[in-house]
C-alpha cells in the first residue's frame, strides 16, 4: 500500500501531465483550423488542374506516344514509394498507420519480385520504416523547421522525384499520405502519381461535354501537356502535404483529448484511494487517542 505522501505525489504528477496534454490539445485545435483553411484554399487550384488535365489527356487515350509522365516508361519493375508523414509524434496512430500502409504495399511488391525504393517526407515515417527497410530508403526530406508548408516545399519534393524519374531510378511512383475526413477520422491513402492517373470526375457531365469544344493551343498542345504534367505532380504532392498536416493535427487533437480524459480518470481513482487512506488514518489516530485517554 503506497503511503499518503506517495499518493499525493502521484496525483500531482498526473495532474501536471493532464495540464500538458490539455494545452497540446488546444494548440492542435488552433493549428488544425489553420491547416484546414490552407487545405481548402488549395482545393480550387487542384480541381481546375485536374479538369484541364483530364480534357488534355483524353487526346492521348490509348496512344503509345504519350509523354512518359502520363503513359509511363513502359516498365513496372522499380517502384518508388513516397511516404509523407508528420514531423512529430504524440498523435495517436497517425504516423504508424501511414507507415503501415506503405509497408504492406512494399511487402506485396517485394513478394511479386519488384524492387522497392522509399523516399520519406517527414522524420517520423523515416524512423518507422528504417527498422525494416533501412537500405531501401534513398532519401529523407524533413520540414521540421518550416512553420507552414507552402507550395515551395511541395515543388522541391516534386522536383526531386522528377529528377529521379528522369535518371531512370524508378518506373512507378506512389504517394502515401493520410486523407483528412474529420477530426476523428483520417484515412491513410495511396495515390499513384507517375505515370499520372487521370481521374474522371463523375457527375460533371456538362464539363466533360464542354471539353469537346475545339481549343486553340499556344504554343502547342504537346508543349502544354509537357508543361502541365510536372506541375500536376507538384500539385498532388502539395495537396498530400496539406491533407497530411490537417490530418496530423486532427489526430493529435483527438489523441490529446483521450490523454486528458484518461488523466482525469486516473486522478479521480487516486484521489479516492488517497481520501480512503486519509480517513483510515484519522480513525486510527482517534482510536489511539481515545483508548489512551480511557487507560488513564
Amino acid at each position, binding site marked *: 500500500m503506497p503511503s499518503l505522501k506517495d499518493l499525493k505525489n502521484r496525483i500531482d504528477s498526473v495532474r501536471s501531465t493532464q495540464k500538458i496534454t490539455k494545452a497540446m490539445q488546444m494548440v492542435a485545435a488552433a493549428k488544425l483550423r489553420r491547416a484546414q483553411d*490552407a487545405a481548402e*484554399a*488549395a482545393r*480550387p*487550384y*487542384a480541381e*481546375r*488542374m485536374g479538369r*484541364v488535365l483530364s480534357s488534355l489527356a483524353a487526346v492521348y487515350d490509348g496512344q503509345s506516344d504519350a509523354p512518359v509522365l502520363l503513359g509511363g516508361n513502359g516498365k513496372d519493375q522499380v517502384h518508388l514509394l513516397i511516404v509523407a508523414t508528420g514531423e512529430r509524434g504524440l498523435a495517436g496512430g497517425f504516423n504508424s498507420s501511414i507507415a503501415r500502409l506503405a509497408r504492406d504495399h512494399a511487402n506485396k511488391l517485394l513478394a511479386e519480385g519488384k524492387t522497392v525504393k522509399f523516399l520519406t517526407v517527414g522524420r517520423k515515417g523515416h524512423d518507422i520504416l528504417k527498422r525494416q527497410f533501412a537500405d531501401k530508403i534513398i532519401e529523407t526530406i524533413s520540414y521540421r523547421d518550416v512553420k507552414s508548408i*507552402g*507550395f515551395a516545399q*511541395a515543388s522541391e519534393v516534386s522536383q526531386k522525384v522528377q529528377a529521379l524519374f528522369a535518371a531512370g531510378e524508378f518506373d512507378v511512383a506512389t504517394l502515401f499520405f493520410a486523407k483528412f475526413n474529420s477530426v476523428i477520422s483520417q484515412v491513410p491513402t495511396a495515390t499513384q502519381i507517375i505515370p499520372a492517373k487521370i481521374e474522371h470526375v463523375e457527375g460533371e457531365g456538362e464539363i466533360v461535354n*464542354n471539353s469537346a*469544344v*475545339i*481549343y*486553340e*493551343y*499556344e*504554343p502547342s498542345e504537346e*508543349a*502544354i501537356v509537357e*508543361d*502541365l504534367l510536372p*506541375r500536376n505532380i*507538384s*500539385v498532388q504532392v*502539395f495537396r498530400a502535404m496539406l491533407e497530411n498536416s490537417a490530418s496530423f493535427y486532427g489526430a493529435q487533437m483527438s489523441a490529446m483529448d483521450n490523454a486528458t480524459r484518461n488523466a482525469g480518470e486516473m486522478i479521480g481513482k487516486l484521489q479516492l484511494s488517497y481520501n480512503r487512506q486519509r480517513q483510515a488514518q484519522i480513525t486510527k489516530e482517534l482510536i489511539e487517542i481515545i483508548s489512551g485517554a480511557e487507560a488513564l
Partner: protein
Amino acid sequence: MAEGLKIEIVSPERLLVSQTVQSVTVPGTEGYFTVMADHAPFMTTLRAGFITVTGDNSAEIFFVRGGFADVSPEGLTILAEESVPFSEFDHADLQAQIKAAEEELSRAETPDDKSYAQLFVSGLLNLALEAEQLNGAHIH
C-alpha cells in the same frame, strides 16, 4: 453590350480573384493577349509578367509567374504557379534575382548554358522594366 467576362485567378495556395469583368490582359508565352467576353476557346502557358484586370471603371494588376491560362466558353481561368497583387510585388527581390542571374551568366561556359542564362536575365530585366512602367517610375 455583351455581359462581362468571368475570370478566376488561382494560385496553389489560394483563390485570388473570382469576379466578372470587362477584359483581362494576360502575359502568354508568345506575347501579351487580351481576353474579352465570348473569346474563342484557347489555352496557353504563361510567362512571368503582369495581368491587368479591367472592370467597369477600375483596373487591378497582378503579378504572375508560370502557369497557364484556359479560356473556355464559361470564362477565363488562370492557374498561376505564383501570383500576388501588384501592391505586394517585391521589387527588391526581383533586383536580387537579376543580380544572381547575371552572375550565373558570367559563369556560364558552354554556348548552351550561355544562351539559356542570357534568356533568363533578359526575361527578368523585361519584368523589371514592366514593373517600373506600371509603377510610373522613371526608367533607367
